[in-house]
């Protein structure tokens, strides 16, 4: 199986006055295609920083990060943006849908940055919304949708560019437990379909769905466990 993510001695340091804060302190992680990974850890452990680096929102202070075959290092803002558009599908805790835009327009948005013609954008966005079961809500504005529906739109938006990885930041943090189950079921299905999924979370029940759990403490990986097939949770 080919590697999607290779993190090699990744560090991220922040200068705070005289002190250097080591948000990440030598991370070595490889993630293969079609893995289903949870990154967990207490707050301040560096999981958000790690997610930002994986998601090409940030670059490491030192170390090498290969996303697919591309070395994400000292890229310019523009190159990082292009990389995000091409390789990463973001799913945020608070959905981050565009206000005053319909579900369809939201899902079409990432394709704008690929300079795809309008009709083609619409076609691909429709397919993606169909995949998350919202084909009857495409013209609803985000404030006309429930929390679960909003997150489905966000997932459709992440899927529409066919990225190498789906990157979720506490994707169910704002949802009730019933909706959480629905959304996690959707992630499970997407994984079955071959997507590579990385979820940053502090909820154990989310981590339970994943097949591999990476635990961070103080910017270091303290545990990296792959579940055997029989240990995996099936909903």
């Amino acid at each position, binding site marked *: 199986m080919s590697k999607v993510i290779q993190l090699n001695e990744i560090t991220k340091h922040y200068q705070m006055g005289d002190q250097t804060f080591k948000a990440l302190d030598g991370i070595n992680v490889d993630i293969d295609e079609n893995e289903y990974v949870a990154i967990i850890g207490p707050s301040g452990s560096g999981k958000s920083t790690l997610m930002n680096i994986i*998601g090409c929102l940030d670059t490491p202070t030192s170390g090498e990060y290969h996303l697919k075959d591309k070395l994400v290092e000292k890229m310019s*803002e523009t190159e990082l943006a292009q990389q995000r558009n091409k390789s990463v599908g973001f799913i945020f805790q608070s959905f*981050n849908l565009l206000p005053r835009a319909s579900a369809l327009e939201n899902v079409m*948005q990432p394709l704008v940055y*690929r*300079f795809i013609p309008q009709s083609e954008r619409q076609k691909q966005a429709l397919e993606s919304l169909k995949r998350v079961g919202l084909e009857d809500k495409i013209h609803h504005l985000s404030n006309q949708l429930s929390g679960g529906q909003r997150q489905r739109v966000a997932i459709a938006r992440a899927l529409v560019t066919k990225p190498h990885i789906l990157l979720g930041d506490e994707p169910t943090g704002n949802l009730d437990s019933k909706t959480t189950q629905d959304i996690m079921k959707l992630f499970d299905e997407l994984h079955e379909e071959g997507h590579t999924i990385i979820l940053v979370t502090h909820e154990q029940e989310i981590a339970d769905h994943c097949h591999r759990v990476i635990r961070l403490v103080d910017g270091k990986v303290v545990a990296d466990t792959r579940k055997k097939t029989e240990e995996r949770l099936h909903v």
Partner: protein
Amino acid sequence: MFKSAIAIIEGVKAALQAIRANAMRSALTCLGIIIGVASVVTVVAVMQGFTKQINEQLSDLSPDVTSIKPYVALEDQMVGKQSKLSYDDFLYLKNKIKQIDVMTANMLSFNFANGAQYQNYIHSAQVIGTDSDYQKLYKTFPEKGRYLRESDDEKRRRVALVGETVIEKLHLPENPVGEYIKLAGKWFHIIGVGETQDSFLGFDQNNYIYIPISTMSTLDGGDRGIITIRYRLKVGADEEIVKRQITKILRQRHKISSGQPDDFQFETAKKAKERTKELTTSITGVTAGIVGISLIVGGIGVMNIMLVSVSERTRVIGTLKALGATPGFIMLQFLVEAVVLSLFGGMIGLAIGYGLSELISLMIPNLSDTHIPTWAVLLSFGFTSAIGIIFGLAPAIKAARLNPIDALRYE
């Protein structure tokens, strides 16, 4: 190219959405630009109307008539130098120059400045001394009675031809021929009523009394009157040769030593037209420039609201960046939004300016139709776009430079 087009379309969409969502705020933001464009357009339109009217009136002026007027350069005027053409200059030229078909003169005298009296009515009219050739030169005809005759001039008769306004103001009978009015302390016999003319730029053109120039010259006392000589050449006569002849005679009569400038000048309708054109163009330019300053104030309003807009939409910008929007794309989008906002103001301003100029043309009688030239429309759109770009630049750069991580976290 194609990529920029998509960014521009996205910018226009976002801008229209933002304008719709904050209609009131957008309208207030645009107020500066609306007022600026409306004033520029109104000023230009009204000035165009004036110019058009002046040109129409000037084209009525006989193109073949040349005037000779006293002339002293401004710097010489300031040291008290004066010049004038005398009644004798006029008579001399009239007899001497053979190439001339008709020559007449207009004289204004301070002794006649007190106006005219009829019964108990006193009215200040423009009293002009001229001769019978005035009628030949301008081919004008009396409404009633007769025009000044050669014999009136020869015999220095106290006769007067009056305009419509004078009849009205002095409460003269409808047909005043035969009545007497008092001018400069003397009684004048009304012999006719002159042709009624349209008012020019709101100025009454019928408030005149024509009397024989010889009569005026006699009553002027000391040759203080201001004389303008007008003539038309005979067919086939050489304009330049005649001008040279007149110049030579006048310089001799005025005892101007060689090397000194003429103390008179020639003027034709064509020259007058050129001068008015220069004048109206510069007035238009200056006023448009002054009101254009309000456009800059408007631009600052746009910049202000765009900065607010960028702050408000920090999270959205963060999201767009996470979805793959490059800094260049974000910058272009916000620039387009600022331009759309300015253009929106520009269009409203254009409409208001159009309405205002229509209103002004209704209020000023006889003002030719005001009209907004295409260049003014294009210029105001060009200028408002430029304002949008210039004042949208700072907010757009701010948006483009936002750190996506901080922007996503922004509450």
